[in-house]
């Protein structure tokens, strides 16, 4: 089984703990980051299989981070899941335009998030 590395960018420590730990306990290699700049460095150094991020982040929001990832040929192939508490249609639209692969609205049940992640890796395995 190939590596199933996930980078999770979330500035709220409680939420980072909730979803990060949940995914980790499910067997995924999850690296958490509270700051987008730090996350970028992690991603560039060791590109993960999947990136999950919040929208509201310090200095740079998730949308901008996505645009930067997607415009860099080195990281453009890595799927980006956005986990946001913004539920407005406009936010979803912006995320889709930035190149986000899946937009999930918080609060989302940890098990549901896990399902999405598992689905992604299953699809990648079989694909």
């Amino acid at each position, binding site marked *: 089984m190939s590596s199933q590395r996930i980078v999770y960018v979330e500035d*709220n420590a*409680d939420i980072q703990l909730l979803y990060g730990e*949940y995914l980790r306990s499910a067997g995924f290699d999850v690296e958490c980051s509270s700051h987008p700049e730090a996350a970028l460095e992690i991603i560039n150094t060791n590109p993960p299989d999947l990136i999950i991020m919040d929208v509201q982040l310090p200095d740079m929001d998730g949308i901008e981070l996505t645009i930067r990832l997607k415009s860099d040929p080195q990281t453009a192939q890595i799927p980006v899941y956005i986990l946001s*508490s913004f539920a407005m249609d406009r936010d979803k639209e912006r995320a889709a335009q930035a190149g986000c692969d899946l937009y999930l609205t*918080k609060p989302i*049940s940890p*098990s549901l998030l896990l399902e999405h992640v598992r689905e992604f890796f299953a699809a990648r395995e079989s694909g």
Partner: protein
Amino acid sequence: MTRQTRVITLITIMVLVALVITLSAERILYRHALTNELSRCLDTARDVAELAEVLARQLKSQPPANSAQDWEEQLLRQLASAARPMQPGNTSRLVVCRLAGENLELVGLKHGAGTAERTTIPWASAPQPYKRAVAGEAGTLQTEDEAGHRIIAGYAPLDKLNIGVVASIELAEVRAPYTRSRIFIAFGAVALTLLGILIANFIMPAYRHASELEDRLRDLIISNTDIIWETDGQQALTYCSDNSSQILGWAPRELLGKKLHEVFCIKPECPVARQLSGLTGRSEPLTNLETYTHTRDGQPVYLQLSGVPVLNRQQELQGYRGIAKNITDRRQAEEARRRLNDELERRVQERTAELADANYLLKQEVAERKRIEERARYMALFAELSPTPVVRFDTTGRILMANPAAVEILSLRSNDTRGLGEILEDFTGLDFAQCIQEGAKLNITAGIRRRFYTFNIRGIPELGFGQIYASDVTELVTARVEAESANRAKSQFLANMSHELRTPLTVINGFSEVLLETAGFQPEDQQHIYLERIRKNGEHLLVLINDLLDLAKIEAGRMELEYTRVDLTNLLREAAEHMSTHVGRRGLELFVDVPPAPVVIEADRIRIKQVILNLISNAIKFTRIGSISVWLNSSPSWVRISVKDTGIGISPENQRRLFYPFEQVHDKQKISEPGTGLGLALCQEIVEAHHGKIHVVSELGIGSDFIVELPVNNHHE
């Protein structure tokens, strides 16, 4: 070559041919007769010569033989008495000739005469037949005799004697009958020529006249534009001129045998056809009968029929002969003229009526004008005294009149010639002419020196000017702007709050779930039950926050409806399906009554479904026993959805407050978990955003019926 010349030539040739044939026949007969005559002459000469020989032998044997002279004399005498010419004729001669020294003695024998006429001629000048006969030859010859007459002669010798017999006849006699017949032939030719002249002079002119008449008739028929026709006793066509092809489209041979009325009348039962039958039945002449029929290709043809009966000597009808004149052009011209006359008459009548109308209107207008002038005077007086600013303007937007109040607020100068657009920026771009012409009513609100005025602009077409009444709306405008801004601020605040609330809620709900999953409590454990409570209340709080957010979005104008074509029958069935377990758990029944065919409207599918789910969910909450029914009715432009329950009902007082946010019907009979109090307000917002309406019909203790009405077409911008 004219007919006359031809006939004369023919006759002349005939005469010539007759002449040639007759003359040739005469010639042949004459030649035949000549040959006959020649052979007869020869026969006669031979017979006589044989007889003479017999006689000579007798005479020689009778002794005593006289001198040669004597028996020859005797022979001649006996011959003269015995021999006879074969044919009685004036010029027939039978001559016995003998050589007498240098001369030739000719003895002419005459029948019954017994004597002989004797002549002696020198041998040298003797005619050929005598010479040849005496020389012992036999034959025939055409020559001249000693007297110089032209003769034909047969000659034969007496054997061993220098004696010959010559039978001759003058050629003139043989020829005489033919010469005579020639006169008759000449006469006949002359008679034939005369006959020819007679024909040429008397019969030919008559013939020529008839022929000219025929030519003339033919030319007339050809050049005539009328159809010329003939019928038999049964009125069937026996002749028809060729121009029927042009006039009727039928060639004459196609018309022959048809009845007169079939050819010239459109129907046998039409009046003209009956008239025609009547006239022909009585053998009366036809005079200018106007008939109507169709050509072969269906074009109308008018004909004028004239004809005369053809009677035989017994005054019996043999048929008719006549013409059919094509009067289509004339009839159509008449028709057009008649129509023109009718049209002219109609127009004169119309014009007369119009004039009467105009006269009436003119009178009315005069009266109206008086009324208007009266009104204008009152208006001017009223405006002058009114504390409300009043301005009167013309089609170019210039001020005709302004009362003191208007002068003050618009800062008008005396005799101000500026247009309204120059006086107040908000008036620029107004089409004053159109406003006056159409009697338009416009409202413009404008700020002047920190106050707001609403200008009611009205065009008065009958007066040709417009008036503006201004009212001070400063308080109203300020209040409205403040209210709007407060509402926006509230909505923004709600949106932000709901977002902020989500984060801690995410943590609470998320960890509750993780704990429930991972802590290993049994469902009956107190800790498990407590965790369940935390999670359930967290979820309720989330619903509340979501509703709040939706409401805020709508109020902040940020909810964007995604219009698609939505089949409501399908949507209602889905919603009912979604709620079915919920309904079943409460021991209720849910009926869905929708038309079999799709009912499609333009709407945001998710939002409309949200409304229906909300209404059904409400109905479940307030119904203890019975059922919930969902109905769908549709018309071409509207649909009506009804969600009806048999629940506790709502009092009229509560019905009024039902759709306000955070209002909940407080009732002791309330059955289940508390609602957010936002559901119906949200439903109303969504339905109204769709340009629809929602209302409730309810009676306490009987049930409630929530009715949603939506337009079929939503032309969203």
